[in-house]
């Protein structure tokens, strides 16, 4: 069973992050933590959507139009990724999502 995120939460990138395009994704520098995370192409698609605050459904919908994946699988993978990004402090949720 995947992680459950509040349906009403809206996710956005944390400020003070620097990102740059890699050949097949995006690299993100987390200055306060002095760490770098390289995102794969799928994670990059989610990252690019988070340039403005979005709910889980608002993230999943454009991904379904772009990738050949079932809605359930897409939602599960996006939830997993968002949980990871929340845990790493790279994104924040403004409404009820578990903060770290």
């Amino acid at each position, binding site marked *: 069973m995947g992680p459950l995120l509040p349906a009403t939460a809206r996710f956005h990138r944390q400020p003070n992050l*620097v990102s*740059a*395009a*890699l*050949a*097949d*994704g995006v*690299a993100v*520098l987390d*200055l306060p933590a*002095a*760490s*770098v995370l*390289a*995102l*794969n192409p799928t994670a990059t698609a989610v990252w690019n959507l988070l340039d403005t605050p979005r709910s889980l459904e608002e993230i999943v919908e454009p991904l379904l139009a772009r990738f050949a994946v079932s809605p359930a699988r897409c939602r599960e993978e996006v939830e997993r990724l968002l949980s990871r990004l929340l845990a790493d402090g790279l994104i924040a949720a403004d409404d009820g999502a578990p903060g770290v």
Partner: protein
Amino acid sequence: MIDAPPLFAYRAYGMPVLSTFPLNGLVPADPRSCVDPVSIQLGDVPAGLDRPLIEDSVRQITNAAYLRHFPGLLRLYVEDGRRVILNPVPDCPRTALEAIALGAGLGVAGFQRGYLPLHASVVEVNGTGVAFTGPSGAGKSTTAAHLGQRGFANVADDLCMVRLEAEEARVGRGVSHLRLWDDAVAVLGWKDAPRSPLPEGEGAKAVYAVATPPQVADFTLRRLYLLRAADESSPPGLARLEAGAALAALLESLRLPPIALTTGQAAAHFRRLVALCNTIDVYTFTRPWDLGQLPRWLDRLTAHLQEG
């Protein structure tokens, strides 16, 4: 009339250098060609830096200055990518003075200038540079020495300064010697070769002069190999790294990671690192731990170097 002290001019790691004392192993240069040089001198250094961004028991770092204490040897001050000042204790060995000037001194100066200092050795392959990186003991210098025996001249050992210009990664020649462990020297057949000892604290390593390329101009860096020791889960071999893993390898190979990621220059250096990742090909070279088996795997590496 006041006599000016003699200056020794070099080109090191792609940077013009003027030093008040000789630095063995560097490529001499015409002092008149040294525009905007890194100046290296002996003298007093500040007791401390104002509001350091990073501070530990031996270092203080700001965006523009670096102060480091090498206990029992010297204090090093590097400012604005242009001034390297060493304040040695009276009996500081000459080898330590030169090693610190060439390593930490020029490495920090280059970093302050926007170069990426990588913990890597570089050899010349068909007029381009190929770098070998990995943690201490991974075999960077040993690999470069074996490749030297196969006709690939040494460009830089242990420190490589990369600058990005016009979508190319460029590296300059470093010192014309390799620092090698005794067991590596035995496999190379260099037991009777002339050698210079390293300062205390660097184990059983010694310095060996090696052939360098005739080209004095800088090289385009084409590839980087991350050296790993083979084990049960990772047999010897070569593999290309995808972008994310390649970036991680480059990040690991940065000679100054604490500064790279925490000073006010962090974002600019991060973007340079990503640009380097997008510019060169990065591979792993997993080599057998037994040095006796190394030559066979170097045959494969040699063939790989000559591809493409």
